Structures are given as C-alpha cells and as structure tokens.
C-alpha cells in the first residue's frame, strides 16, 4: 500500500454502548475511490462488524447517505480525492436516531412520506374508466413539476435542515417536495387531502427557508423552492377564503 487515508468512523453498538465512539481506520488512498469504497474496504478487510447501508453505488438508490466531514453526502458520490485534509470523519445522517454504527432509523421519514400521499389522487367520481384512455398531459404541464419527481428519498435534505434537527415533528423537505410534485401534476386532484398535513402546524410554515436542503440535494430537486411555492399556494387559499367568505367550492 503506497498511500493511505484515515477514516474516522462513528461506531455505536446498542447492546453494549451507552454513548457512541469514533474508531480510526487506515485505508488505501485511490484516486477513483469514493468514501463508500473505503467503507466497503473497512468492512471486507479490517473490521467486519461495521454496519451501514448501501446498494446501487451510482447515486440512484439513495441508501448510502452519511455525514462526511459534517456534510450530508451520498458516500457513493463523495470522492476521497476531494478531501485533502488526510482524514475523513464519517457519521450517520444528522437528525435521525442511530440504530447501529452508520445506520439511521428511517421510520419517521417513511411515516411522513406516507402521510402526504405521494401518488395521484382523483376525486370520488373523477376516476376514468380504462376504456376512456389515459390522463393526457402536455410537455408544458410536465415541466412544471418534473424537477420534484427526481427525489430518491436519500434523506440528505432532512440532515441538512436545522429545523428538522430541532423539531422532528416538522414534515420536512423531501415529503413536502413530493406532495408539491403531485399537487402540481395536472392529473392529480388530491391537493385538498394533502393540505391537512402540508399546511398544518408541522408543515410548510415551520420552514424558515434556510435553503440547505436544496444545497445538499444530489438530484437538484430543490425542496426549499417547493416548500416556498406551497406557502404561496396556501396563502392564496387563505385570501381566496376571505374573498369568498369561506364558501365551499
């Protein structure tokens, strides 16, 4: 091994540790290695007890998100060569409970995702029969929300959000961005159902537009923009309600 780099890894074993600790490992430094390669090397060659999640290795599955030198990153896209300090600290995603080592508990995010109903909803009598054909959509209608469809549920945005870190009741960036994705879809009629969660006490109004969720997003989904746009729509609802004196649509 000619050149090596030190990885300082967050270790936590719920069966024996009250507090987590950091353990250092020397791994070979290779130009084409990403942090995930180095972690895989540790698992295969140095310490088989290390736990972490990963799958596709190509920035698609969203499983390998971790804090790399304090920044939420997909470790399959974070190259060792970009960390010149000679030491890389790897921790589990900030803001989530740690199950073991680098594995975070995702339940909270999954529950929130479920709550915003991230799928096309139709009114009671709005469903088309199969023989009536598809719900047509123009490229211009698609362009309005396409960006928000690119979310891979990697949760980096939650890790970058100080609001979520301070109050985990906050629905959070990815779930709101996905709700907005369906709200803006011309085929969808479920906005009213999602509003309860989105415009509720723990929804969009908790966001103070820090903007870091969009900075760390590996797919340029821009959840911060989605949240602000949802705020504009909710504000319009409020004023429409005043003008129409709260009469039902």
């Amino acid at each position, binding site marked *: 091994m000619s050149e090596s780099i030190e990885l300082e890894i967050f270790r936590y074993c719920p069966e024996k*540790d009250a507090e*987590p600790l950091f353990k250092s490992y020397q791994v070979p430094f290779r130009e084409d290695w990403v942090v995930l390669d180095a972690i895989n090397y540790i698992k295969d060659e140095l310490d088989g007890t290390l736990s972490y999640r990963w799958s596709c290795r190509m920035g698609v599955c969203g499983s390998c998100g971790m804090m790399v030198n*304090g920044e939420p990153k997909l470790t399959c896209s974070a190259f060792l060569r970009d960390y010149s300090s000679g030491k890389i600290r790897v921790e589990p995603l900030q803001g989530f409970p740690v199950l073991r080592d680098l594995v975070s508990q995702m339940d909270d995010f999954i529950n929130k995702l479920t709550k915003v109903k991230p799928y096309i909803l139709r009114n009671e009598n709005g469903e088309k029969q199969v023989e009536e054909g598809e719900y047509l959509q123009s490229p211009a209608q698609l*362009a*309005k929300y396409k960006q928000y469809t690119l979310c891979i549920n990697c949760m980096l945005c939650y890790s970058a959000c*100080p609001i979520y870190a301070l109050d985990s009741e906050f629905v959070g960036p990815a779930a709101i961005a996905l709700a907005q994705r369906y709200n803006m879809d011309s085929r969808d009629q479920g906005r009213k159902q999602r509003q309860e969660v989105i415009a509720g006490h723990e929804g969009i109004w908790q966001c*103070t537009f820090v903007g*870091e969720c969009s900075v760390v997003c590996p797919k340029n989904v821009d959840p911060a923009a989605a949240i602000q746009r949802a705020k504009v729509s909710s504000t319009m609802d409020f004023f429409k309600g005043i003008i129409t004196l709260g009469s039902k649509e």
Partner: protein
Amino acid sequence: MKTYQIPVSNTWWLKKKSYFFFVIREMTSLFVAGYCLFLLVFISKAAESQQAYTELLVSLKSPVSILLHLIFLAFILYHAITWFNLTPKIMVLHIGEEKIPDGLIAVSIYIGWLAVSLIILWIIFGG
C-alpha cells in the same frame, strides 16, 4: 429498539457558514421591525405639534442618530438583498416548457426596487 439520538448543540448555527448567514438574515428582521416602529413614532410626533416634530428633526441630526441610521441601513439592506435573491425560488414561472431563468426574475425585482426608490425620491425632492 434502543437507538441513540445525536444531540443538537445550542451553537449549531455557528458550525456552518450558511447557517450563520441564515441566522443573521432572520435577525435583521428585528431591524426592519424596529425601523417601522421608529417611523410610527415619527408620524405621531409630526401629528402631535410643530414643536415636537422640530425637536425630533434636531435629534435626528445628532452623530448618535446618524450612526444608528447607518447601522440600521446596513442590516435592512442585507435583509432586502438576501430576500430579493431568494425570490426566484418562490416565483417560478414558465413560458411553455421553458423556465424563466432565475437571474431574470431577480433582476426584475431589483429594477422594481430601483423604480419605487426613484418615485419616492422624486416625491421628496422633486415633487
């Protein structure tokens, strides 16, 4: 299942440049609100009597007042500029499939700002 929650320190906003500038942006709202209160006081003094208004004008010319105004101006400018720069994220407009570039939205806001400022200056000095 036993889990470990990594604690959030009270100094979280000092750990990242972007968090720090976010907190500064939020804090500048106090200066905006403070100056609004001052303007209300200013109007009430003007309505009170000619003497009260003149006394206020004299006190505004003091070095302390000028220094305070400069400090308020700096923070209010920071507030306005950071929010103007964020506007393209909120105002997303499309022409057909094409999104109007963020820069164009931001520039239009600045032009609007300049226009309103010129109108106010014209009312004060030229009207």
